[in-house]
């Protein structure tokens, strides 16, 4: 359900005021940018896409359904923008990272004591996932959304969300623990 304060702000915007939208931008811009960064792994691109998401959300505010939380609707817009961007662009694999990740001579996860290095290896592994797996991993593990909310954001059934998360985890496990 929509937050009462947010619903009041949305009503003010619909009545012709622009400035109240700043409250929504300030509240959600970090999470949106973070999610987009998890997907595109480019800081400048993430901010550009996030700005596009906020502008599109503003334009389509009349279509917002208060049954859902505003953040869920906003993430849905941002996620669709990222998905469209990924379809239009042809991301090239970072060969250097891939090679350092796959090579057997590199230390295994069990041998790495530096948590920062572990995190980087895991992130690189997530980057190798297909886009639709990557987005559910980002939304579930890093943005903290439930299966139901993710289902709304990516417009897929809950069963599909669970399946994709399971397969993503399985693929990550093979990639990471295969190095053990």
């Amino acid at each position, binding site marked *: 359900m929509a937050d009462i304060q947010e619903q009041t702000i949305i009503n003010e915007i619909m009545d012709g005021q622009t400035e109240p939208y700043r409250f929504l931008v300030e509240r959600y811009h970090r999470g949106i940018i973070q999610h987009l960064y998890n997907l595109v792994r480019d800081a400048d691109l993430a*901010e550009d896409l996030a*700005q596009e998401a906020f502008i599109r959300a*503003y334009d389509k505010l009349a*279509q917002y359904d208060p049954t859902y939380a505003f953040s869920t609707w906003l993430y849905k817009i941002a996620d669709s923008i990222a998905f469209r961007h990924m379809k239009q662009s042809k991301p090239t694999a970072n060969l250097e990272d891939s090679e350092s990740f796959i090579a057997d001579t590199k230390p295994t996860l069990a041998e790495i004591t530096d948590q920062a290095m572990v995190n980087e290896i895991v992130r690189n592994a997530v980057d190798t996932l297909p886009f639709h797996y990557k987005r559910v991993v980002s939304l579930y593990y890093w943005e903290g959304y439930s299966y139901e909310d993710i289902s709304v954001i990516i417009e897929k059934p809950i069963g599909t969300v669970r399946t994709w998360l399971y397969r993503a985890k399985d693929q*990550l496990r093979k990639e990471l623990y295969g190095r053990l």
Partner: protein
Amino acid sequence: MDDFDKIIRNAEQTYQTSATFVEDTMQQISLKPTTPKRGLRLWLPVLISGMAVIAVVIVASPLKGHFFSPNDSAITTSSNNQGSGEKSSSQQPTSAGTDDASLSSDLNGIGTAMNQESTDQNTANGALNDSAEQITVPTE
């Protein structure tokens, strides 16, 4: 959440957003010529309700004559009897107020009776006028 879930969760790289993002975004929005308008979401239910009411009225209006048609003969009979000043003893009085059809037939009967009274009154007035003309004595 198992240990592997925690490993994935901890791997999130926090990205530091630029300090001017909010301001830049609001500037882009302020350049827009119009604000978002309330769309069909508000008006569509009203429109659908209105159309439904109109549809009910249109459908119900032809049926009105159909429901009242069995009583037309009774009304005609009643008005004929009233015009002749006699009441048919065999005619059973309609129970007024039981339904709309009965009420309507009663009203029609009253209207017919009033018309008849008006006609009688006109006839009486005409008779009086004639009498008045006869009574008037020309002055010599």
